[in-house]
């Protein structure tokens, strides 16, 4: 895994984060974070609740503006990378599952003639064809999150950001969501997701960005991290985890 990681990372830097800070009121939620991510990998931002993972992800996606510091994404063939984000609580519109996907495509300026085909493809990849016509908000929690994934997938993102996508789900639904994330990654999207769940990090991560009280204490390949984290904070986090 390490060798593969290195090879892929050598293909180019996808994202550079320089001295990133974010303050809300008098609270510093992210404190001088610096790291860079290579292309092609699945990065898991790991840390306890309130560590600043979600803030970091929102800064990367541009939903929050940094107090200081910079986020610079690479370009792909001279255009900005396409990003999509999936949230902890899926935000679905009061319309059918299919219409939710088409809505995102239309905002993404996809030609109207192509929307339906692309939406259907994404729904079928996520195994949601049977609920395409159903109203999105009455689906089960797991189905809702997979629909949010399908909606993001349909946008054919270069980078998919996920903020604790399974935090509210039972184990079966979690497994289904993880499978869907793996398939989106296999389809060519770079994955950056946050979690506080060590098991999930083990299953999904190529590399780990560990966040503790607003600081990035380490960024290491997953195999290295799980063999023995470098930072004392990560060691404590792993010891505190219920197996």
């Amino acid at each position: 895994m390490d060798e593969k990681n290195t090879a892929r990372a050598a293909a180019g830097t996808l994202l550079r984060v320089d001295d990133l800070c974010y303050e809300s009121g008098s609270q510093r939620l992210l404190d001088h974070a610096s790291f860079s991510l290579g292309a092609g990998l699945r990065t898991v931002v790991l840390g306890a609740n309130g560590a600043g993972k979600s803030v970091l992800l929102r800064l990367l996606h541009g939903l929050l503006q940094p107090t200081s510091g910079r986020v610079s994404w690479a370009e792909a063939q001279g255009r900005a990378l396409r990003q999509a984000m999936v949230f902890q609580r899926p935000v679905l519109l009061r319309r059918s599952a299919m219409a939710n996907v088409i809505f995102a495509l239309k905002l993404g300026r996809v030609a109207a003639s192509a929307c339906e085909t692309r939406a259907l493809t994404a729904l079928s990849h996520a195994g949601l064809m049977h609920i395409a016509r159903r109203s999105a908000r009455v689906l089960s929690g797991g189905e809702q999150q997979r629909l949010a994934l399908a909606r993001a997938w349909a946008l054919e993102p270069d980078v998919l950001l996920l903020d604790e996508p399974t935090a509210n789900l039972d184990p079966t639904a979690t497994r289904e969501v993880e499978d869907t994330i793996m398939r989106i990654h296999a389809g060519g999207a770079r994955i950056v997701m946050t979690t506080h769940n060590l098991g999930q990090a083990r299953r999904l991560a190529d590399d780990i960005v560990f966040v503790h009280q607003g600081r990035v204490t380490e960024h290491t390949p997953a195999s290295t991290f799980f063999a023995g984290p470098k930072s004392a904070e990560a060691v404590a986090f792993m010891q505190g985890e219920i197996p």
Partner: protein
Amino acid sequence: MNTLGNSFIAAYELIARADPTLLAIIGLSLRVSLSALFIATLVGAPAGALVAIADFRGRRAVIVVLNGLMGLPPVVVGLLVYLLLSRAGPLGELGLLFTPGAMVIAQAILITPIVAALTRQVVEDAWTEYRELLTSLRATLWQAVVTLLWDTRYSLLTAVLAGFGRAMAEVGAVIIVGGNIAGVTRVMTTTIALETSKGDLPLALALGLILILLVMLLNAAAFATREWSAARHG
């Protein structure tokens, strides 16, 4: 039998035989108030949604004013529209004074703030939920407004209905700008006011009963629609 009892019987007869004068008055009332509501919704709903989600200087002041305008006194609105539309007024050439058109204008002014202020509340709640998604999908301000209005459409029924109720029930504005001319600008509320002062209680009472009934029916319909939508869309 007392006056009230007699009036009720006479009112019932008027309704039962679908008295043409009665029907004409009800028809005009509905036409005027629905037209005013149409204009108020067209203007007030997008304006309210815009105030809910746009970030601009003086937004708080706009919200306070908007909420305050919900309580506009109908007679004052009537007076202002009267001054605007009177022969010497800036819009006097339109010749709208004492026509149903003038009544539509007055009622639209009266209820646009109601629709806008209530829409603002509903849309602002939805915006807290949708904000990150719509920002992530790079929706423009206008796309966000349209999306939020569409997604809250069943809740907005209440806002629209509040506006309609106000328009149907007010008498101060329409009596000033309409003039309460029989067969031309006489609506339910102005008729009730006039007939009561003349002592012709049955017509006034019949109209009063129908007015209450109409408002009840509309509220029931809106309630049923919301229940249905909650079951269907969550």
